[in-house]
């Protein structure tokens, strides 16, 4: 098969000058929609759960737990800041976007409920996020790999802390057990979305930026199952899965969360910290 002659740098330079600049320019790296879309998913998951957890501040069962939850929240908001800054202007993305433009999963936007439900949600999400970040450290995208490498240690702690609490609550008093079962029942239908691979995610996986969550679904179910077994809780029955967050379909709870989170910068756009 005849091969093409190598491209000479001087020819390239000429071609560059001839090319008209305009609307039909190929998207540069900075505007790669697949990459930007994936960064929004990662950033929004962390941002929304961080905001949710911050609602506990001053209301947790004890001052120590208050600090634990605030630490988790701040870790997540830190990760969100990094991911969203890669996707664009982090502040604009966090505070000037409307609910339909958010790409987080349903699990993270769920109301805190009681402490048991908050901890169940944390176990289900942090276990997934930990397994995901572990794989993202090998992302072909240097920024994603770097943020994941920083975040994976934080999330490992979140996962352990949540597991410790779920075991104690599940295997605790009658009341703590009943509340934990209720929390699981509330959260379980949002788990399948974590493993959903739509076209957009498939493209990001194909590009090597994203990790395919299905590659660790079995590991995830085993890990969560082991914690629940420790907590003497039965694995919940599978419910009808609720999906759509990645495409902007959200529960009514997200709008309320955003109303509080975005109120200040939207009302006082020039406010300085």
């Amino acid at each position, binding site marked *: 098969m005849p091969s093409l002659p190598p491209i000479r740098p001087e020819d390239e330079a000429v071609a560059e000058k001839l090319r008209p600049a305009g609307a039909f320019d190929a998207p540069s790296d900075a505007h790669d929609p697949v990459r930007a879309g994936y960064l929004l998913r990662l950033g929004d998951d962390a941002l929304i759960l961080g905001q949710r957890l911050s609602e506990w501040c001053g209301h947790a*069962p*004890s*001052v*120590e*737990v208050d*600090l*634990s939850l605030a*630490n988790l929240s701040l870790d997540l908001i830190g990760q969100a800041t990094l991911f969203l800054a890669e996707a664009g202007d982090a502040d604009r993305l966090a505070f000037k976007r409307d609910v339909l433009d958010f790409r987080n999963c349903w699990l993270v936007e769920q109301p805190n409920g009681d402490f048991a439900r908050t901890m169940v949600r944390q176990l289900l999400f942090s276990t997934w996020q930990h397994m995901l970040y572990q794989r993202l450290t090998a992302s072909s995208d240097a920024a994603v790999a770097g943020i994941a490498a920083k975040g994976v240690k934080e999330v490992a702690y979140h996962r*352990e*802390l949540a597991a*410790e*609490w779920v075991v*104690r609550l599940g295997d605790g008093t009658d009341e703590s057990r009943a509340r934990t079962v209720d929390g699981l029942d509330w959260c379980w239908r949002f788990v399948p979305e974590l493993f959903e691979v739509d076209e957009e995610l498939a493209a990001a996986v194909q590009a090597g930026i994203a990790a395919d969550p299905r590659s660790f679904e079995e590991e995830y179910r085993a890990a969560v199952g082991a914690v629940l077994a420790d907590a003497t809780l039965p694995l919940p029955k599978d419910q009808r899965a609720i999906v759509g967050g990645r495409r902007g379909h959200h529960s009514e709870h997200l709008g309320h969360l955003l109303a509080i989170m975005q109120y200040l910068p939207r009302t006082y756009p020039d406010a300085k910290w």
Partner: protein
Amino acid sequence: MSDWPLWEVFVRAKGGLAHRHVGSVHAPDAELALRHARDTYTRRQEGVSLWIVRSADIVASDPDQAGELFEPAADKVYRHPTFYEIPDEVKHI
């Protein structure tokens, strides 16, 4: 929460230094006490290692006995090694 026991927290600021008492936390058991201590006392890079001990397990001297326990040491200046001539060649003492 009110029935959570109290735990004393000791932090080692960096390798080579001793653990120092920094405060206490409430927690239902040792494992969570360690996590509470981590979240309460090392969130600003204060340490590289933690020790936790149940406050009830600490044997403390009786403040009422402070006089007989500690005051007799006050006038024993000869217990301080300040009367030796240190040769110039001896460093790091």
